[in-house]
Each structure stands twice: as structure tokens, then as C-alpha cells.
């Protein structure tokens, strides 16, 4: 009997798999419809995982079951494929094509295990939907079985499943926008006079705009003839924090404040929050996965770099809620209280 298909369809470079497709290659492929898709849709397909859209209500058979049984299941339930599963492990798939061949060949009563397709492309349940879409674009199959980390069959996903969930999420998104945004609490100390306050929304995985806020902050500082060395440090901190929020959080706001002789970059995100803040602030530690790395991010340097370039650094996080990072900078040594920083 063939061994269960064990390698995920999205074989990363470290695990040369059935398909030989590296995560990096897939990441480089354009998302079908991606260029013309509205941003919110792109955000969704990056945020949602295969497990959020897959069908978990699985009809499966074991290897001993006759193909006829598979045919009956397909007809009765209007499905086009029956996974062959035993003790949670996926052994193969019987498709309509397999049934047609069995009818023609006169072996419709033989066990599924003997005639099922075993060379399967499977997806992992924590893969982003954007990745899964590339598979639909690349291969002719209409559906893919989904395995979890433990290689147990947990669902099956088709293009239709993805569309259904996107429609639902889009509706929710429209409702959210209509309710309006919440403000950001910037928390100045007593006696602080605020000279400049800029807020920039940061959308999760919005690579088109990632870094734009930091670029603007740099221009603002440069136009005001701020000391170039301080400008650079603030710009680096803003950029690192902005990219961090874009790649690792559910999105949030980047705020830039200038008050008495001080500048502050505040990155406040909407989750997921982290339990071990100290771990996150160490060089090289990152929650990035292979596909984020393939896009050039995720080296794990964001927070440590920010800490290094800032005069003051504060990070607070609540798992499940969100994280706030504040990077502070002295603009000019010896600026008197109440005086505007030199223009």
C-alpha cells in the first residue's frame, strides 16, 4: 500500500517535496487578480488562512470501501471528490474521473485503495489564502485536501469556499468602515506642548504602502532642518516599527509626535499581542514564516534595531489585544521648555 502523502504541497526550500515548488517561487507569482484587486481584498486573502475557509464537513471513505460507494457519495452529496482517510491520515483521493474510468474498465466494485489517486497536492491549514489561490492558478485541480501540522486530514478547500468566505468578510469590512475609526490615544505628559502630530494607518501585509509613513516622517524632519543624525535615527525607528506592524500584526497606527525638544514614534497595533516581549526584542528572533522571508522581510531585527537607535524605548503588549511601542528621541540638547524646536 502506498504511504500517505506526507509532504505539504507548499514544499519550502528546506523540504523538497512532491511538487518541488519552493515557497519563494510561489510568493513571487502574482496573486490571481491581485493587480486590480482593492486593497481590502488583498489584506483579507493575506490575513485569512486556509483553515478559515475550508470545508470541514468531510465525507471520506477508507481504502477497503468499494469505488461504487464513492460514486454514491458523490452523486448524493453533489461533490466531485472523496478523500480516502484512515485514522485521520489521508491516503488518497477518488475523483469523478476515477469513477468514470472504473465504470469503463468494469472495476467499480473494487476497493478505493487500489485505484485512488495518491499523488496529491495538499495544503496546510495555516497557509494564507493568498498562497492557496496561487495553487488554484497553477494546477488544474478544483479542490485540495487540507492537512494540519500533524499531517491529519482536517478539511478540503475549493475556489468556491474561498469566494464564499471573502464575500462574508467583505460585508463585515464595509460595516466596520461605516461605523468609523476609533481615535488613537497619544498620551502626552503634563506641560508638554505639542508642535506636530501625524498619524498614519498601517494595514496588515499592505506591502504597497509599507514604509511610506517613515519616508514622510523623514521628509518632514529634513524640511525642518533637524540634525541629520537624529533624523536618520528617527526615520529608521519609524520604518522598522511600521514594517513590523505591517508584517507581524493585524495592522494599527503609526503616530509621530514632536513636543518640547522631543520626538516620539508610537506604533500601536490591533493584535495579536505577544506574551514574551523580551524575546521579541532580541536580535534574530522572529515570528515570520518562510513566505514572509521570501519577500525580503522577517529577519527578526525590527524591534532590536528600533531600540538601538532610540534614546528611550518602551514596549507593552497584551496577548490577544495588541502591542504599543514608543520610541523617543531628544531633538536638540538644551532646548528650553516651552520653546519650539529650532525650525
Amino acid at each position, binding site marked *: 500500500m502506498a504511504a500517505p502523502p506526507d509532504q505539504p504541497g507548499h514544499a519550502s526550500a528546506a523540504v523538497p517535496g512532491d511538487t518541488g515548488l519552493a515557497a519563494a517561487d510561489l510568493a513571487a507569482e502574482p496573486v490571481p487578480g491581485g493587480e486590480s484587486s482593492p486593497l481590502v481584498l488583498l489584506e483579507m486573502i493575506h490575513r485569512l488562512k486556509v483553515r478559515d475557509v475550508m470545508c470541514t464537513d468531510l465525507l471520506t471513505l477508507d481504502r477497503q470501501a468499494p469505488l461504487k460507494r464513492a460514486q454514491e457519495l458523490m452523486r448524493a452529496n453533489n461533490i466531485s471528490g472523496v478523500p480516502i482517510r484512515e485514522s485521520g491520515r489521508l491516503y488518497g483521493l477518488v475523483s469523478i474521473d476515477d469513477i468514470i474510468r472504473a465504470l469503463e474498465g468494469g472495476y467499480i466494485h473494487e476497493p478505493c485503495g487500489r485505484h485512488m489517486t495518491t499523488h496529491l497536492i495538499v495544503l496546510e491549514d495555516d497557509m494564507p489564502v493568498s498562497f492557496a489561490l496561487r495553487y488554484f492558478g497553477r494546477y488544474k485541480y478544483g479542490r485540495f485536501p487540507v492537512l494540519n501540522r500533524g499531517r491529519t486530514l482536517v478539511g478540503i478547500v475549493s475556489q468556491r469556499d474561498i469566494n464564499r468566505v471573502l464575500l462574508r468578510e467583505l460585508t463585515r469590512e464595509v460595516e466596520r468602515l461605516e461605523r468609523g475609526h476609533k481615535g488613537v490615544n497619544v498620551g502626552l505628559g503634563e506641560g508638554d506642548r505639542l508642535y506636530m502630530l501625524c498619524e498614519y494607518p498601517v494595514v496588515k501585509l499592505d506591502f504597497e504602502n509599507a514604509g511610506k509613513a517613515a519616508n514622510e516622517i*523623514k521628509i518632514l524632519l529634513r524640511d525642518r532642518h533637524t540634525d541629520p543624525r537624529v533624523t536618520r535615527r528617527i526615520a529608521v525607528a519609524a520604518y522598522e516599527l511600521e514594517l513590523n506592524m505591517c508584517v507581524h500584526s493585524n495592522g494599527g497606527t503609526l503616530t509621530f509626535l514632536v513636543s518640547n525638544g522631543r520626538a516620539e514614534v508610537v506604533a500601536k497595533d490591533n493584535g495579536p499581542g505577544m506574551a514574551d516581549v523580551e524575546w521579541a526584542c532580541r536580535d534574530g528572533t522572529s515570528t515570520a514564516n518562510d513566505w514572509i522571508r521570501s519577500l525580503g522581510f522577517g529577519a527578526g*531585527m525590527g524591534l532590536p534595531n528600533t531600540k538601538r537607535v532610540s534614546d528611550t524605548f518602551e514596549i507593552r503588549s497584551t496577548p490577544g489585544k495588541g502591542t504599543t511601542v514608543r520610541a523617543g528621541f531628544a531633538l536638540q540638547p538644551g532646548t528650553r521648555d516651552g520653546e519650539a524646536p529650532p525650525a
Partner: protein
Amino acid sequence: MKINDVARILDGTVCYAGEGPGRPVRHVVASDLMSDVLLVDADDMLLITSLASDQVLRTAQIVGAMGVVVANGKPLPSTMAGIARSLGIPLVTVPLAKYECCVRVHAARAEEQRGGAA
């Protein structure tokens, strides 16, 4: 050595030449990890990279690079030229591998220091 010299030395195409006379190359960084580029404390660097993305230009602006060379003859995303212009970062695309770029730029700078033509 200015960005046009770099383009010539590397058989490259200038996608955006920048405004005015342009800044000279004071430092060279060859990297595809933008987080590493942010760590380099040098002004007017020439950034040589295999990564063809908007993020390269945004990083270049943050660190005050004088120009960006994208190696391997990669076709650039259509957004890159516009972003180079809006951020004022000269951008050159070259057919050579990054390794070859390093070798040629290094040789040209050494020549320049010896007093030869740039």
C-alpha cells in the same frame, strides 16, 4: 563616481537619474536584507541588491542612499520608477549578478582613488 558612472560600469540602464548633479558614492552596500541595510551607519551609500521591490527604495530613502542598483537584470515592478522619482532616489537596473557588480564597482573606485578616470 556618480550614478551615471555606476550605470556605465555595470552595463546598466538608468530608470531614474535623480535631480541635479547627484551625490557621489561614498560607501557601497551589497545586501538583499533591508533590515541589514538599515544598520549601516553611512551617508551616500550605493545600494546594490538583487531584490526588486518598492521596499528597497523606501529603505534607501531612510538611510540617505545616493542610489540603488538592482542586479540580475530583473524586470522592475511598474511602481518602482515612480517611487524612485517621488523619493528622489536614483535607480539603475543592471544585467550582471550582484557579485560581478561588487567586483566592477570596487575596481572602478580603486582606479578613481589612484587618480584615474572615474
